[in-house]
């Protein structure tokens, strides 16, 4: 279910509120403001990622939700209850840390059972539940081992099993994959996502890895310096970044500083039209284009360039397996190099190579324009 559906449903019924509602949350450490008026709604069953560079406040927000280090201002509601000042032990969540935080002197089974043992369930029931969880995370044989005897990826799965053992309403993951090597990481991404879908548990994952966020999340909250810059689905975030920061942080970009006039920006003699609205004439802007949005149009310069077409020279080309990366020089715009990803097909079809003169096209809907900060 997407946020939009839920919003519509709520509007229609006028009752239910989102499962987790973060409202105007601030957090200060002494003079330093780590969270600045953060608000966010999370729907039941949703997988949301807090994404942003290191130090932007992701963990701080997560810890506020967990009741480990409370927000300074603002309210947090979960499942219709105000949990703003509720201690961690009375909230309803399971948590997994980057360090796994498995108890080293307890066996895997005892680790997983740690939370179950408070519930005064009979021993047999606990043990059955532990087996079930070990099956669920795909490690049925490891019950009697100690954490140090497992690999990092296995340990992280045990930590996950321990966190979901008590059927929490909310699952919090703080950089759960960053301590693992690349291959395990990709594999585990998939497994966590699968598990989350199967259990339907509302999940917040903190990460600084955009690929991880794009591949796992239903929605992403991109954070920067204590504020949420944008919330949206992975494609929204990628296709329609709301701010220059988001555009820059997610995916690769070419950035060219220029000015805006009448729905278009000028690069040398070329005029590039844009669908970005709300810009003044003469406003200083940054134009942002992703490498895959620079499309090959023709070999050689067109006699008469149409809008959104640019004459370029291929300075050099690298083969990156599934596509070619080309560095393009444009004699017209002061040699600002432009990076483009060309498909293998296109390269073959146009016969592109280093030194080729060609015309490229940047469709208006792919041309992102943002006001330049600090310049009127």
């Amino acid at each position, binding site marked *: 279910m997407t946020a939009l559906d839920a919003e519509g449903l709520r509007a229609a019924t006028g009752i239910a509120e989102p499962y987790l509602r973060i409202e105007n949350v601030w957090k200060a450490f*002494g003079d330093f403001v780590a969270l600045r008026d953060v608000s966010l709604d999370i729907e039941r069953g949703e997988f949301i990622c807090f994404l942003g560079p290191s130090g932007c406040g992701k963990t701080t927000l997560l810890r506020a939700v967990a009741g480990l280090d409370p927000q300074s201002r603002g309210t947090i509601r979960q499942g219709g209850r105000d949990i703003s000042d509720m201690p961690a032990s009375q909230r309803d969540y399971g948590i997994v840390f980057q360090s796994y935080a498995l108890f080293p002197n307890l066996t895997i089974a005892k680790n997983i059972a740690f939370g179950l043992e408070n519930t005064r369930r009979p021993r047999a029931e606990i043990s059955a539940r532990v087996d079930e969880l070990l099956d669920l995370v795909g490690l049925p044989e490891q019950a009697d081992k100690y954490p140090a005897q497992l690999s990092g990826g296995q340990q992280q799965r045990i930590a996950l099993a321990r966190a979901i053992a008590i059927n929490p309403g909310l699952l919090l993951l703080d950089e759960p994959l960053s301590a693992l090597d690349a291959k395990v990481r990709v594999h585990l991404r998939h497994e966590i996502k699968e598990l989350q879908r199967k259990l339907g548990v509302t999940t917040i994952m903190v990460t600084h890895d955009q690929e991880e966020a794009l591949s796992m999340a239903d929605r992403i909250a991109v954070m920067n310096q204590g504020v949420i810059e944008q919330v949206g689905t992975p494609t929204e975030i990628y296709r329609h970044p709301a701010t220059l920061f988001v555009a820059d942080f997610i995916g690769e970009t070419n950035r060219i500083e220029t000015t805006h006039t009448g729905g278009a920006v000028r690069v040398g003699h070329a005029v590039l039209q844009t669908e970005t609205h709300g810009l003044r004439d003469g406003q200083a802007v940054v134009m942002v284009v992703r490498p895959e949005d620079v499309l090959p149009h023709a070999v050689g310069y067109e006699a008469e360039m149409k809008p959104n077409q640019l004459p370029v020279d291929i300075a050099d080309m690298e083969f990156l397996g599934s596509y070619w990366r080309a560095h393009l020089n444009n004699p017209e715009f002061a040699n600002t190099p432009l990076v483009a990803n060309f498909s293998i097909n296109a390269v073959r079809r146009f016969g592109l190579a280093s030194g080729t003169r060609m015309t490229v096209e940047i469709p208006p809907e792919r041309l992102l324009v943002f006001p330049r900060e600090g310049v009127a």
Partner: protein
Amino acid sequence: MTDAATLPPGRTTRLKLDRDGVIKRGLMLVIAAYLFAALALPLYAMLSKSFVTYSFDLTRYEFQVSDETGTIWSDPVSAADLNARLDLFDPDDLRTSTNGRLAVTGFFPEFSFRSPVKYRLRGTVADAPYLVGLDLQNSTEWREFDGNTFRRVNLRPVATAGLQNYRAYFTNPTLLSSIGNSVFIATVSTVLTVTAAFGFAYALNRSCMQFKGAFRLIAMMPILVPSLLPGIALIYLFGNQGLLKSLLMGQSIYGPLGIVIGSIFFTFPHALIIISTALSISDQRQYEAAESLRASKWRTFWTVTIPSARYGLISAAFVTFTLVITDFGLPKVIGGQYNVLAIDIYKQVIGQQNFEMGAVVSVVLLIPAVIAFAVDRIVQKKQVSLLSARSVPYQPRPNRRFDMAMLGWCSLVALFIVGIIGICQFAALVKFWPYDLSFSLRNYEFDRMDGGGWAAYFNSLRMAALTAVVGTVIVFTGAYVVEKIDGFRLGRAGFQFLAMLPMAIPGMVLGLAYIFFFNDPENPLNFVYGTMAILVISTVTHFYTVGHLTALTALKQIDAEFEPVASSLRAPFWRLFARVTVPVCLPSILDISIYLFVNAMTTVSAVVFLYSTHTALASVAVLNMDDAGDVAPAAAMGMMIFYTNAAARMLHAAASRGLLRRTQAWRLR
């Protein structure tokens, strides 16, 4: 405050306390209360005592005298006037201690208790205490006495706060000379000990000499005996009837010489541990670099070895200096007429009952100890940051000449240590040194001597066991509170300060502070005075800091995320504590308990003020038997402490190994 500038207006969110939070805060309060009652308040009592002087204030009293009929009264006259008229007391004569009494009949030379003359006395101000018999009076109303009662009237001193005690101290050349003496022996001992320990540590870490294990073991032996034991050995060797007295060529062992030699003995292991740690963390790569630059061995030593070990050396020097300057047992046994600060405290308190002056000397002794403590803390912090995770430990290569030289040095030191203990053992086992060297166990029949007998030994055992158990619980819980409770920042910082403080407090000072605090009849804790409890409390407190640091180190190595995970699983913190924290820290917990046990067996300085006849201790018995001239039994008792501690250490080693094997299987992959 700052919030207002950066945050929107409103109240800062505070989490409600859950049951865990309440219990944790309760725990913190209990331990803080312990440290307050066992440390802060006694020290405060001592400090304030050092500023208090007692004197008779004669201006506060007025007399009237009747004629023979007892009906016609003279004009009121103040005691000060009478004193001036009769020229009785100088202001100095009026200075006294808390217990001072001044008979009023002295102001009336013609007084006779048979005479029918009557007397009246009143205070002119509210605080004018006097005794009628044992009855304390304090009144501005006239009271009338017949001659017979009047002779039982005594004025009591009043307390005034001021620097008089300090003035008296700093104008007393005998007392003042102790400062110089203390600094002198501490400095000399420090230089010699650190040099010897450096050589030893260098051999252990940087050579391929043989028998390293045995040397390590021997070097730690002095920790197992009271600091005064080497004094006894030295008396046997170089004392008036000493075997090797002639070697001293007329010098006396009683005095600085004996103190310094004995101090080297008992401080050696402490210096060695610190320096050895510093040397063991040096980086092989630096030496390889030096070698590739073709630096000579000598230059490498001065440009690489010494600088990288400098923090260890500084730290060892300060620790040694503090140990020596605050030590009491050794100067007591072998100091002769040579006065040092720790002895002065003892003499002022036990000999002259001048508690206030004892407090002044204590404050003086605190100064070098506190400075040494501060420097040590700073240096320790720097040393930690030297440790880089990527440094490669130094691997010594065999070098025959060098290894033999190192072996020689270590053998010399080992001989010294084993020799001292051996002499004591020998002296304890012979009939009458040096005249009848046949063996006998008579010296172990402690019940025939004064000093507490075998009961003292068993008291010590009990005290050490209690200290180990109670102390470990308190220390570990305290460290847990500091390290693992979130929030409450200020309280925790204060707590941490209190936990570090004992390291800077010499045992004598702590003991004296306990007298002031616990012996005060108005203190509700007065009941522990004279009991086993006060000995345990003082010992736990005296040795608190090292245990605290050990526990902190262990707790810091535990993942900080365990507590959040446990509370997310809604498991109460004590389950985490019992099932994870304590088991993981078990090796450190055992270390703390053996440390407390051994020190409780050997300590003299704090408890010497606090034991009572039924809580006499072995270490104090050594001191007292030596004082009474029963030197051989003193040596025998010293050896009892040695056997006990050695056995305890072995038990500890076996227990640690067993526990590790049984419960810590998870440490092995």
